[in-house]
């Protein structure tokens, strides 16, 4: 365990993240990259992007509250150290997605009201389930909720958004690729650290699995509402600027042609498959909310 945790030191984090893939970036993207003009000029398209970005901010605010709360509950120094880097990663994500809202034309004074207008209520409930465990300083449940469930969801959502934005919006795609790189560390830590704790405290299993079921229920409701309101990633729409490239694909679906239901189904199936695999590896059984 000590050797595994040494891979998550702050020194390693400094070398791989700020001095690695984030070097020469500003708010996670290249200094000369901008939101596409076509997006900024089209009110519907811009509103879809604002709505999507608001959900990312809400998710990252929850992750910031959760990871910082877990530092205090961590049973050993090495876990505290890793969670310190995760806290800053999440703080950075809040900052870069907030900056994206400003880049999309939201005024700083309107930030909170914009978030309140567009936030998906199910995402708030998803966060509540997790933060309740954090408030109780329940490290095992907190790490499963944060680093397996929340991060697992974020990882897949970012990958889908990245697939949609890669050709049409290189700035947003670059921002997302940095967050995906961060999430890899977070899910890796969650799986590796918590597997050991689940083996040591098997009595925690039923409670943790209940939490996973509740969070999954709210996550699926979030996806349903998001796709019903917004459809797939806006960049993947036929009207989006593709710069002469073929339409993006996600899980074998042509994102420009797939229906909202198909996109929702593909994302949900991907996330749930990931959950089952990861939970199985740490000795937990996936609980379906249905």
């Amino acid at each position, binding site marked *: 365990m000590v050797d595994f945790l040494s891979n998550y*030191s*702050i*020194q390693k*984090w*400094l*070398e791989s993240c*700020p*001095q690695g893939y*984030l070097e020469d970036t*500003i*708010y996670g993207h290249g200094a000369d990259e901008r939101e596409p003009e076509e997006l900024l000029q089209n009110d519907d398209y811009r509103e879809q992007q604002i709505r999507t970005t608001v959900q990312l901010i809400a998710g990252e605010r929850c992750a*910031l*509250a959760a990871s*910082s*709360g877990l*530092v*205090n509950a961590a049973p050993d*120094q090495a876990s*505290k*150290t890793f*969670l*310190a*880097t995760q*806290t*800053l990663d*999440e*703080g*950075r994500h*809040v*900052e*870069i997605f*907030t900056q994206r809202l400003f880049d999309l034309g939201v005024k700083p004074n309107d*930030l909170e009201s914009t978030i309140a207008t567009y936030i998906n209520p199910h995402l708030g409930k998803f966060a509540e389930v997790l933060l309740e465990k*954090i408030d109780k300083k329940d490290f095992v449940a907190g790490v499963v909720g944060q680093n397996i469930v929340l991060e697992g969801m974020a990882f897949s959502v970012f990958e889908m958004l990245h697939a949609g934005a890669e050709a049409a919006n290189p700035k947003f795609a670059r921002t997302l690729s940095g967050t995906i790189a961060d999430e890899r560390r977070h899910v890796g830590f969650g799986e590796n650290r918590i597997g050991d704790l689940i083996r040591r405290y098997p009595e925690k299993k039923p409670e943790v699995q209940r939490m996973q079921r509740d969070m999954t229920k709210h996550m699926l409701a979030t996806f349903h509402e998001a796709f019903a309101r917004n459809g797939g990633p806006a960049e993947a729409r036929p009207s989006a600027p593709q710069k002469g490239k073929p339409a993006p694909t996600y899980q074998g679906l042509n994102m420009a042609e797939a229906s909202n239901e198909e996109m929702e189904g593909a994302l949900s199936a991907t996330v749930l498959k990931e959950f089952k695999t990861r939970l199985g590896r740490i000795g937990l059984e996936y609980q379906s909310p249905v």
Partner: protein
Amino acid sequence: MTEADNPHELGEAEFRATVHSFEFWFEAVEGYLHGRPYGVSPGLEEVDLTERQRDGLITTLCNYCVGETAALDASSGMIGFAPDRGAKIFLATQVVDEGRHLEVLLHRMKQLGVADPDAEIARRANRSLLKFKDRLLEFVDARDWEASVFAQNVILECLEFTVFRHHAGTADPVTAEMLRGIVSDERRHMGFGENDLGRRLLTAPHTHDRLYKIKRQLDSLVLDTFAETMGELGIEREERPDLAGDYLAAVARLGFRS
């Protein structure tokens, strides 16, 4: 040079948004941490320490670890009740700074031959500093922003800033370079605390009396810790840095009489 590059031409809100950001932290620490694994330039040579010097340094590093663990636990806990987004993001940068301090201090202890740093810390930790830590974490658990900022970012950071700066001036080259990197971080933490609290006291003067009582409770713990640390480092009373000067000046700027 563009107008945006002259810090003195920024508006107040713009200045605060700039310095309380990940971007600012990221570009600032790059300056003094890049190419310095564990805070020290590769190739910087160790000097021989006497057994007494080595033992004194280990005790001191153990106590620095207690202080940094307190700051790590407190700053991470404070994110949950920080009053705004800027403060939350600033605290996220402080969390990683404190985690790094702990990491480099533990690394240095290992270089000095300490096999089990945790056991050594438990054995050598200063009782007053442990009491201070408990008190600080009580404020955090109570989600008391003003008391937490005061105890951590004003009192504890001021103690560390003074002790580390002085110690860096007398320590062996490896320890000195490591400490200078920590001091560069402490400037941000201390400044954040004093300025946040200063603004708060202007609009809520009733807070003043409450914080003054807290200060009186914590003063003796801080001063005991300081005196003991100076003793471990073998610094004679007349050569000790003026903690009272730095600390009392900071609290005097906030309007606290001593």
